[in-house]
């Protein structure tokens, strides 16, 4: 077993949850035979039972099937948001960290500007102008999110460039850009990776919140946040509707957070929270 997973039962359980969520994303048919969008008005708003383990919604659609199929839009949106920000931000950070003092100063002000953007309000503004939908939400958030990675990466690059092996590579006559890509970059990635695992869970919560506000995923797409929104109308009489999609968000986010904390302990002991040092 990799050292990463040797963190006790919680870490193992979290790993299992993430695996199941990944499987649901890749092959939802494994978990349910039902069509998440099959409408059956005769069976609307039924309580959980053997044939519908999580009950049915206002159109008689099976909530378990919708939760299973909801993994794909929910998780791919979060992953692409973090992926986009991670790549764009790291490259920007690499360039900022490698550039001179003057341009460093200017570029840092630029990232500060993006960091100060209130994310939810910005996403609401973008979606009101460009149209609602998960893709626009992801783009709107990525437009501000990259700056966090850029700053982290820049700090790493500045620190790593002082190390002896970089001086050695320079003394060997290697080119500056080659040193950056081959020697500096690989030594900068672990805190960035740690941040990105924890950020995926933040991204799920934020995108679900936007779907809950009605500007993210649009019906009939089975996205977890959007399902909670519709379920809210039926909350008091049909409580299972809003409960289970929200529970799915909670479980996956919790699992990702546990893994993220564990990954931080293994990869990046320096930034460990003072509670455990």
């Amino acid at each position, binding site marked *: 077993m990799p050292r990463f997973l040797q963190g006790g039962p919680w870490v193992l359980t979290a790993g299992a949850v993430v695996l199941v969520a990944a499987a649901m994303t890749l092959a939802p048919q494994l978990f349910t035979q039902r069509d998440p969008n099959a409408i059956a008005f005769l069976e609307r708003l039924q309580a959980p039972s053997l044939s519908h383990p999580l009950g049915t919604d206002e159109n008689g659609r099976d909530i378990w099937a919708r939760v299973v199929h909801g993994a794909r839009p929910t998780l791919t949106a979060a992953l692409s948001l973090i992926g986009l920000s991670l790549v764009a931000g790291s490259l920007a950070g690499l360039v900022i960290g490698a550039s001179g003092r003057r341009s460093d100063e200017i570029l840092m002000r630029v990232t500060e500007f993006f960091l*100060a953007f209130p994310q939810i309000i910005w996403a609401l*503004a973008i979606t009101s*102008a460009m149209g609602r939908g998960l893709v626009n939400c992801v783009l709107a958030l990525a437009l501000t999110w990259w700056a966090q990675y850029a700053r982290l990466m820049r700090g790493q690059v500045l620190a790593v460039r002082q190390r002896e092996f970089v001086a050695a590579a320079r003394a060997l006559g290697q080119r500056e850009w080659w040193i950056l890509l081959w020697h500096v970059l690989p030594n900068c990635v672990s805190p960035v990776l740690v941040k990105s695992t924890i950020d995926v869970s933040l991204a799920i*919560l934020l995108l679900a*919140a936007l779907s809950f506000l009605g500007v993210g995923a649009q019906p009939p797409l089975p996205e977890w946040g959007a399902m909670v929104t519709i379920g809210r109308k039926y909350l008091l009489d049909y409580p299972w509707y809003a409960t289970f999609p929200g529970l799915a*968000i909670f479980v996956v986010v919790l699992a990702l957070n*546990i893994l993220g904390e564990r990954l931080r302990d293994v990869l990046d002991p320096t930034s460990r929270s003072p509670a455990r040092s």
Partner: protein
Amino acid sequence: MTLILRRLPLLVVLLGAISAAVFALTQALPGDPAFIAAGGGDATPEMIAHARARLGLDRPLWVQYALYMRNAVTGDFGRSLVNRKPVLDDLRTFWPASAELALAAITISGVIGIPLGVLSAVRAGRWLDRLITPGSVFLGSMPIFWLGLMAVLVFYRVLDLLPAGGRLTIGLTPPSAVTGLLLIDALLAGNLVVFIDALRHLILPACILSLISLAMITRVTRAAMLDILHEDYLRTARAKGLSETRVVLKHALRNASVPIVTVVGIQLG
């Protein structure tokens, strides 16, 4: 103070940039607002031209933007496309409720978070301290909008302890608006019935909302206290024979209060 003055221009630039970005996006959109304003479908070209002139859409782009900014700065936010009321009126109606909720939430998270942070710093490594990190990860993993629904489900439907929503029970006359904050207005009017009713409506959303900042405030308090607890002047205070509570609360907490006040302020926003 100078810091605030230095930050203000940045804020103005930021607001300007967001408004410009949104303005540019609405321009880039397909669809003609004048066509919609003229009634859509069977509007004649004359009607559309008239609507365009009325809305000022026939002027150059930068003039439109300047007008939009001038109106916004003077407090004219236009009319809502949904209910046709001036947006400012809507803001006036709903702002006190939001302010009351935010203030209540930050009060709760401060009142719980600061003592919790102090305790876990004083007893670093003991059970309370070791619960705080997992606890904040656990709570932080819940989608807040879902947690709110679940709380309504439990406290209203299952336990029937608290109302499900709104600010006052229908039928109660709200106190005359002095501050707009129901709790304070009710107290000023000496109306205890309304006060308790408003409190019962406020407590659940405020508690849920306070969870967002609770973890943050606890962690910052703990870190600030840990930094200070080993200082020499605390040893001096102890050597003077002051009780441990007094040392912690008067000498340590007061000196740790700068980051704590900062984070409470940030969380309020």
